[in-house]
């Protein structure tokens, strides 16, 4: 299976992706800016896991992390992400830039370095974690929506440029997931129920379901899939109009 790198692996969805990758037979490099938590997750996974403090927004930090690897990674998962909630009118420039740096610049820096190592190894797979916010806007999401949309387009650009080198690049867009950054939101029972009701499958998703998709896109089964975004969202992004009222007596109009 080879080596998998997971950024933002110290908590939430990233930690679950790292665990799943190890279970699937990868050796796993777990990277996170929070050294304490990432070491804990790696220790828990066991011998196949190595933890490292990496700041994806710093080119020297990313370059050094790749140089420390003992082989070219077969799979790199750009999972590190940041959200700073707030209406755009009052969002500070610092918050805007912090989110751009982690979500977009971080994905670029890690992917570029990964591709440089993968090319002489005749290929590999990169999976970016975007969000359904990259497909549809949401109030209060600040810079998050724009960065995730940018990651989806950056995925296409990288797939196009690196396809001839045998490097596939795809994106997973998680929906309402009960894990990681969203824990605080779903602690509120009323909010949780209201959100669940919007999902066609009627429930929140799990980090495991996101990890399953990541591992599929990284696997040989996805050998002909590149440049794509796959929403793991219980149908939410296809359901914008499902809650509109309509009189039961009206079945057709304009006929």
């Amino acid at each position, binding site marked *: 299976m080879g080596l998998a790198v997971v950024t933002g692996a110290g908590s939430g969805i990233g930690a679950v992706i790292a665990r799943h990758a190890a279970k699937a037979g990868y050796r796993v490099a777990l990277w996170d800016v929070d050294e304490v938590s990432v070491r804990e997750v790696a220790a828990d996974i066991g011998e196949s896991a190595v933890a490292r403090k990496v700041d994806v927004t710093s080119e020297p930090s990313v370059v050094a992390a790749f140089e420390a690897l003992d082989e070219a990674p077969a799979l790199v998962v750009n999972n590190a992400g940041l959200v700073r909630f707030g209406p755009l009118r009052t969002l500070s420039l610092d918050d805007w830039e912090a989110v751009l740096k982690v979500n977009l610049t971080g994905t670029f820096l890690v992917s570029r370095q990964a591709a440089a190592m993968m090319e002489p190894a005749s290929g590999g797979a990169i999976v970016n974690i975007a969000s359904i916010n990259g497909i549809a806007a949401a109030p209060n999401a600040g810079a998050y929506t724009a960065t995730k949309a940018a990651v989806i387009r950056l995925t296409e650009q990288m*797939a*196009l440029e690196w*396809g001839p080198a045998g490097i596939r690049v795809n994106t997973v867009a998680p929906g309402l997931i009960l894990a990681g950054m969203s824990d605080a939101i779903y602690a509120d029972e009323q909010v949780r129920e209201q959100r669940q009701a919007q999902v*066609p499958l009627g429930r929140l998703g799990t980090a495991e379901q996101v990890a399953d998709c990541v591992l599929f896109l990284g696997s040989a089964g*996805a*050998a002909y899939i590149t440049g794509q975004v796959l929403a*793991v969202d219980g*149908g939410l992004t296809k359901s914008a109009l499902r809650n509109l009222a309509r009189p039961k007596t009206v079945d057709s109009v304009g006929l």
Partner: protein
Amino acid sequence: MRDIAGTSILVTGGGSGIGAGVARTLVERGARVTISGRREHKIRQVAGELGPACLAVPGDVTVAADRERLVEAAVEHGGGLDTLVNAAGNMYRGALAELDEQRMLDLYHANVVGPVQLSGLALPALARSKGSIIFFGSVHTQRAFPGASPYAATKGALESLTGVLASELGAQGVRVNCVRPGAVYTEINERAGLGTPEEAHARLQGLAGAHALGRIGTPEEVAEAVVYLAGAEWVTGGILTVDGGLALGVTHA
């Protein structure tokens, strides 16, 4: 992920092309597969190769009585129905001014109306198993291929109704997804009037350089996407493109 081993899957158009590749892959992964098709010798041949896990049921998705037989046979063969794979499809091509009305309607019947009717018929069984429906879109909805307007339109219809049906059936626990293949060599390309097998194949091979991965795909590679979607319990309304990067619009300068 739901393991597809032991699940019951109905694959229409299982006698050739992508449908046959899907059936082969699903049987390899331990599923109980029922395949259908209009040409009995074709589906019998595939089922013969795949052994007792695969049942061949001759039938045409545009015929109501056939659809009923298909669902009944699949439920009996697999002990219920977990996944319906609508792989049956046809292609009709032509210049705008020469398009034949009846052939356009027949194509819409075969590619859209039949699969939708079949899906409705399979719904009670799928609701019992919390199963899923898979349609096939096409790269034709993403890139224009002159002369392919009837086919592209039917595939656009399937991609649109994937989202609507996902939204509609979610409450019953039934998922609806779509696989969007790119250039895959199958006999549909010959049937569409692209010439002899050699000519049709050469025409598709000519597209290789337009793919990010530099080559056309295989039915088995498309089948892997079906395996994933059949087991992905929180993916619905999704369109998974399996095209080697063809729709990215690659130009190698």
